[in-house]
């Protein structure tokens, strides 16, 4: 059962590490229509307006499309990514050869949606560059909190 406490609280992001991989996950419950959350996640140009972790996304977030993402995590780099899965209002996956980010939405049938963001990076060469990759935890927490705030604002806005 969803409680008021679980709605307001967002569990902090967690990271699991192995020799060849690192995976970070964050999850939060959002009291908004999944269509609103999905629209926020798939409107590339609009990200910088509501998401404090994304500087820009160029391209079209749709299946097999290529996008270029710039993030506050590493302002000097741009990440060239491909949209690998696109299941409207359910699942979005983008990534490159080194990693894959998965967004999932689960409708809880009580006016809330559980949003989960998971990123797995790694490969055989991972141990060589792992120490140069900053922690994603704070950025993931901010992403989820921004999404929740914006989606609930839109849902509850009086028109």
């Amino acid at each position, binding site marked *: 059962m969803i409680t008021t406490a679980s709605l307001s609280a967002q569990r902090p992001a967690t990271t699991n590490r192995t020799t060849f991989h690192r995976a970070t996950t964050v999850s939060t419950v959002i009291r*908004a*229509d999944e*269509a*609103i959350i999905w*629209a*926020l996640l798939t*409107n590339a140009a*609009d990200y910088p*307006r509501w998401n404090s972790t994304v500087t820009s996304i160029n391209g079209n977030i749709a299946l097999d499309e290529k996008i270029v993402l710039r993030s506050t995590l590493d302002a000097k780099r741009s990440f060239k990514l491909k949209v690998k899965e696109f299941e409207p209002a359910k699942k979005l996956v983008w990534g490159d050869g080194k990693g894959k980010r998965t967004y999932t939405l689960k409708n809880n049938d009580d006016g809330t949606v559980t949003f989960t963001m998971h990123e797995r990076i790694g490969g055989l060469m991972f141990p060589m560059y792992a120490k140069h990759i900053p922690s994603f935890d704070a950025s993931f927490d901010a992403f989820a909190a921004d999404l929740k705030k914006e989606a609930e*604002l*839109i*849902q509850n*806005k009086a*028109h």
Partner: protein
Amino acid sequence: MSPTVDDLTREFERCKAALKSYIVRITGNRQEAEDIAQETWIKAQRNLAGFKGESSLKTWLFEIAQNIARDHLRSLKRWPEEVGDICKDAAMKDPDFFREAMTIRQTSPQGHFEIREHIAFCFTCVSRSLPLEQQLALMLKEVYEFSVKEIAGIMHNTEAMVKYWLHTGRSRMIEVFDKRCALINKEGVCHQCTELNGIFNPKQNAQEEAVKIQMVRDAAKKDKEHLFDLRMKVIADLDPFTSPAAKLQLHHLEFDRKVMDRHLDTA
């Protein structure tokens, strides 16, 4: 009880002006607005038996009109938010633009230049930089005062998506006008309305004219949401076909549409 043809005729006559003004604001094309309004009337008459009364007749007429316009609008590229700069450059290089505009100014009873009319014209152009659904939803809500539920019916989508389009479209327009419009922001880069006022009404003081508009008087308060509401009120209060500047502004709109067609073809 199902509406009769007489009911439909009365409602069409009542909302025809709003319908045409909506269409010209989303298409930028006067002739298209006339044609779509006419086609809407024909389709509504033909399909009246199928009208189930799930919405008002007015909402249904807007739905028909938008269905006719939408396929064409979807095939068009969106305009950049700098449309005013691009079209100003084109106008400065085109001697016909000012010659035609001055002729309208001098000969037409609808050839006055007013800053508030230019505010409405400017919004029509800049709002075409929004994704289409955001532009349509914003116009229907802020200018034509449809409810979220009615807009969802007109646009064949959910209320949640209408809320999303309204929020994102409104946020984007507030940001663009705050950055560009010198009427509400001293740092704003666009002075086009006051510059044109100087050309068309050389005996007027543009600043004195501007402060007659509440949005300009309230600009110092810096409440961007409030200023946007006032901008929408200026637009809602004007009919682009019957206002004192209608002919002049429709001439500007036609010019901008042609310039943007060429610009986007070569971009």
